[in-house]
C-alpha cells in the first residue's frame, strides 16, 4: 500500500499517547502503596518500559509479527528490526517502523500492569529476569495469535485493541503469580495506607488520556473507525467511573480511588470492543464493567488474596467481560461484524473460546515461570528488606 501522511501522523501521535500510559500505571500504582515503597512501584513501570523496549527491538517484535511458524509464533527474520523499514508493508498505510513502535508501547504497558502483583515485596533482580521471560513467553505468543497472523484470530475471535493480549494476559498472570509470591507481610492484619491518593488520581488521568491512543490508534488509520473508537472509549470510561462510584457508595463513601478504578475498568472492557460497538452500547459495557470489577475486587479481598493493586479484578476480569461484550454488542452499523443482539451466536462462541484459551495460557505459563524464578533466584526480598521498604532496600532512595 501507499504511505498515507494523515494515517502516519496519527499513529505517531497515538504511539506517544500510549507510551505515557506506562509511567501512568506507575503513578497510579505508586500512589496506592505505602510511603516506603512509592519509588519502587513507579520505578518498576519505568524498568518495564526500558526492558521491553530493548527486547522488542532485538527479537520481541519478530516473535509477535514475524512470518508465521505453524500458527504459534513469529519467525526470527525480523530480529533486530531487519527489513522493518521506512515504507509501508502489507495492507498498512504507515511505515513498518511506525507500526513496530506502536506495538512496542503496547508490550511495555502490559508488563507495567503486571507489576501490581509484585508490589512492596519483589526483588528487583528477580523482576528483571521474570519480566524478560514473561514478555517473551506469554505476551509475544499471545500477540502473535491474535494480531500477528496466528491461530486464535483464525478462529474468528475479535480483539480490537488488546482485551485478550494486554488485559486478560496481564490480569490472569498476576493472579497466578500472586499464588507463588505470597502475601505482603501484615496483609489483612495491619491497615496499609496509600501513600499519596492525589498522585494515584494523576496516574489514572494519564491512563485515561493515553487510552485514546491505545484504542483509537488501533484503527491504524486516521479515519471514521478511529473516531468511533475514540468516542466509545471515553463513554465507557465515564460509565465505569459512575457505576463503580455508585456501587461503592452503597457500601460506604464514594472514594476517589473507586471513581478512577471504575474508569479504568470501563477503559479495559471497551478495549476489545472499541472498533465494533456503538456509543450507547459503550455505556452498558462501561457500567457493567464498573460494578462487575468492583465486585471482583471485593471477592479477592474476601478470599485473602494479595494480588495487591487489582490487575486481576480490573484488567483480567474487565478484559473477560469486554471480550464477551464484543460477542454481544458488535454492530454492523460500526464495522462488518455482528453479535448476539443482532442474532449472531457464532461470534459470541468465538469470543468465549478466545477468553478461555488466553486465560488458560497466561495463567498456566505465568505460574510455571514464577515457580522457576522463585526456586532459582527467589522472587521476594528478605523480611527485613520488606519491613524497611523497597525504596531504601532496593534503590537506596526515599520519597
Amino acid at each position, binding site marked *: 500500500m501507499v504511505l498515507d501522511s494523515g494515517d502516519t501522523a496519527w499513529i505517531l501521535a497515538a504511539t506517544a499517547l500510549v507510551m505515557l500510559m506506562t509511567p501512568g500505571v506507575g503513578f497510579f500504582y505508586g500512589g496506592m502503596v505505602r510511603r*516506603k515503597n512509592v519509588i519502587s512501584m513507579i520505578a518498576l513501570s519505568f524498568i518495564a518500559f526500558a526492558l521491553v523496549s530493548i527486547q522488542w527491538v532485538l527479537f520481541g517484535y519478530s516473535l509477535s509479527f514475524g512470518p508465521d511458524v505453524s500458527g504459534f509464533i513469529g519467525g526470527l527474520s525480523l530480529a533486530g528490526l531487519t527489513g522493518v523499514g521506512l515504507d509501508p508493508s502489507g495492507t498498512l498505510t504507515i511505515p513498518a517502523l511506525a507500526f513496530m513502535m506502536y506495538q512496542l508501547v503496547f508490550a511495555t504497558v502490559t508488563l507495567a500492569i503486571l507489576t501490581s502483583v509484585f508490589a512492596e515485596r519483589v526483588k528487583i533482580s528477580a523482576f528483571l529476569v521474570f519480566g524478560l521471560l514473561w514478555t517473551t513467553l506469554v505476551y509475544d505468543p499471545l500477540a502473535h495469535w491474535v494480531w500477528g497472523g496466528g491461530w486464535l484470530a483464525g478462529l474468528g475471535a475479535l480483539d480490537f485493541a488488546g482485551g485478550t493480549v494486554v488485559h486478560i494476559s496481564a490480569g490472569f498472570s498476576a493472579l497466578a503469580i500472586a499464588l507463588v509470591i505470597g502475601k505482603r507481610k501484615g496483609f489483612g492484619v*495491619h*491497615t496499609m495506607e496509600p501513600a499519596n491518593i492525589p498522585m494515584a488520581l494523576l496516574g489514572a488521568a494519564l491512563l485515561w488520556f493515553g487510552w485514546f491512543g491505545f484504542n483509537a490508534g488501533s484503527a491504524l488509520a486516521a479515519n471514521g473507525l478511529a473516531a468511533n473508537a475514540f468516542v466509545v472509549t471515553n463513554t465507557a470510561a465515564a460509565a465505569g467511573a459512575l457505576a463503580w462510584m455508585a456501587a461503592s457508595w452503597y457500601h460506604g463513601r464514594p472514594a476517589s480511588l473507586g471513581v478512577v478504578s471504575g474508569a479504568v475498568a470501563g477503559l479495559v472492557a471497551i478495549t476489545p470492543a472499541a472498533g465494533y460497538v456503538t456509543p450507547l452500547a459503550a455505556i452498558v459495557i462501561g457500567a457493567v464493567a464498573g460494578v462487575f470489577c468492583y465486585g471482583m475486587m471485593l471477592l479477592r479481598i474476601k478470599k485473602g488474596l494479595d494480588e495487591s493493586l487489582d490487575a486481576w479484578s480490573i484488567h483480567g476480569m474487565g478484559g473477560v467481560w469486554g471480550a464477551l461484550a464484543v460477542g454481544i454488542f458488535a454492530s454492523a452499523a460500526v464495522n462488518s461484524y455482528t453479535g448476539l443482539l443482532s442474532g449472531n451466536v457464532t461470534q459470541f462462541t468465538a469470543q468465549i473460546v478466545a477468553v478461555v484459551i488466553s486465560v488458560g495460557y497466561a495463567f498456566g505459563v505465568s505460574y510455571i515461570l514464577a515457580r522457576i524464578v522463585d526456586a532459582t533466584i527467589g522472587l521476594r526480598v*528478605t523480611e527485613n528488606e520488606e519491613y*524497611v521498604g523497597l525504596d*531504601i532496600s532496593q534503590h537506596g532512595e526515599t520519597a
Partner: protein
Amino acid sequence: MKMIQAVIRPEKLDDVKRALEEKGFIALTILDVKGRGEQKGIILQYRGKKVEVDFLPKVKIEVVVQDGEAEAAIGAIRASARTGKIGDGKIFVLPVEMMARVRTDEVWT
C-alpha cells in the same frame, strides 16, 4: 498525673489504640517520628556490603493518665504493640504538673 510516651511500630498503631480504648484511655496524641534503638536499626547485607538503615519510621503516642492508672496503660500498650522482635519500641513515663482545658477554665493538678 503521668504522661506516657510510647514509641511503637507504625503498623501496630491501630492495635494499641484499640487496646487503650478498652481500658478507658480514649484521649491521645500521635506523632510520626523516626528513631533508632540500641541495635542501631536494621542492617541489610548486600554481597558483603553492609547497608545500615538506622532511623526507622515509628509512631509516638502520648497519653496523660492518673497516677494509679499508669501501670494499666503501660500493660495495654505492651500487650498490643509487642511482636517479640527487635524494634518493638520503648515506653517513657513523665510526671505532669498540670492539665488545663482550653474550652473552659478547668484545671487539674
